[in-house]
């Protein structure tokens, strides 16, 4: 199954190069999602299905939606309809679509011969869960504190400074 890995690696590297070289943020975001999909498939072929699912749900799902949400927030002032028309331009989605079709074909091939792929070393969610809530319990608690700090920090930083907007001196 090594050919699968190298093809996935090529897709991931190409998509990442396009992420850092693109000038349009939405294009770059689409390519980053493709790169994350490729890495998730690599996790799957490495025998880590739980992490592959989390990569899709949290990275490609939640975090990228957060990015898109903020970009939409910042673009509010511009003419919205013209922007919508630009987004329907095929040049925007043809590149990511081709790379995603490659990934889809690989997923089909991978799923059709799963038993051959894993090499008998699949580490499933059960083992990960036992580890997370056993030896790594302190790490999990610290991660929850970190997420709370991130929540408070994001709220504080994104808050509107009303004093400054009224023209008074900030305290």
């Amino acid at each position, binding site marked *: *199954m*090594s050919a699968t*890995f*190298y093809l996935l*690696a090529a897709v*991931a*590297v190409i998509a*990442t190069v396009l*992420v*850092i070289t693109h000038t349009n*943020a939405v294009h*770059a*975001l689409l390519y*980053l999602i493709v*790169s*994350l999909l490729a*890495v998730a498939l*690599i*996790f799957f*072929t*490495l*025998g*880590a299905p*739980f*992490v592959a699912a*989390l*990569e899709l749900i*949290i*990275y490609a799902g*939640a*975090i990228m939606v*957060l*990015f898109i949400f*903020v970009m939409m*927030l*910042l673009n509010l002032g511009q003419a919205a309809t013209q922007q919508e028309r630009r987004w329907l331009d095929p040049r925007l989605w043809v590149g990511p679509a081709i790379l995603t079709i490659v990934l889809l074909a690989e997923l089909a091939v991978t799923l059709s011969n799963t038993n051959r792929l*894993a*090499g008998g*070393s699949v*580490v499933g969610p059960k*083992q*990960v869960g*036992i*580890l*997370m809530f056993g030896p*790594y319990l302190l*790490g*999990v608690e610290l*991660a*929850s504190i*970190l*997420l709370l*700090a*991130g929540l408070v*920090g*994001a*709220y504080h*930083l*994104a808050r*509107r400074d009303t004093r400054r907007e009224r023209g008074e001196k900030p305290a």
Partner: protein
Amino acid sequence: MSSVPMAHGLLLAGVLFGLGLVGVVARRNIVFMLLSIEVMLNAAGLAFVVAGSRWGQADGQAMFLLILAMAAAEVSVGLALLIQLHRRFKTVDVDAASNLQG
């Protein structure tokens, strides 16, 4: 791990990390810098999962989960900074916020 040697998986992680680093250093648009940081964190997690899969242990995946939580916290603060930068300087160029440069 199947027939892929661990060195190749780690090499892929290194290449992705390097690309993210180039993105952070070369771009001055804060959106692209945050995206590049995501790429770098993802590459670090990939290295953990590759190593964990090499030894058939779940530790690599546990570390990836912690990296995931860290990336979520980082991106929320980073995007809040992006909103604040856009609000104060009407731009997404990080060089606009150079007051501390002296």
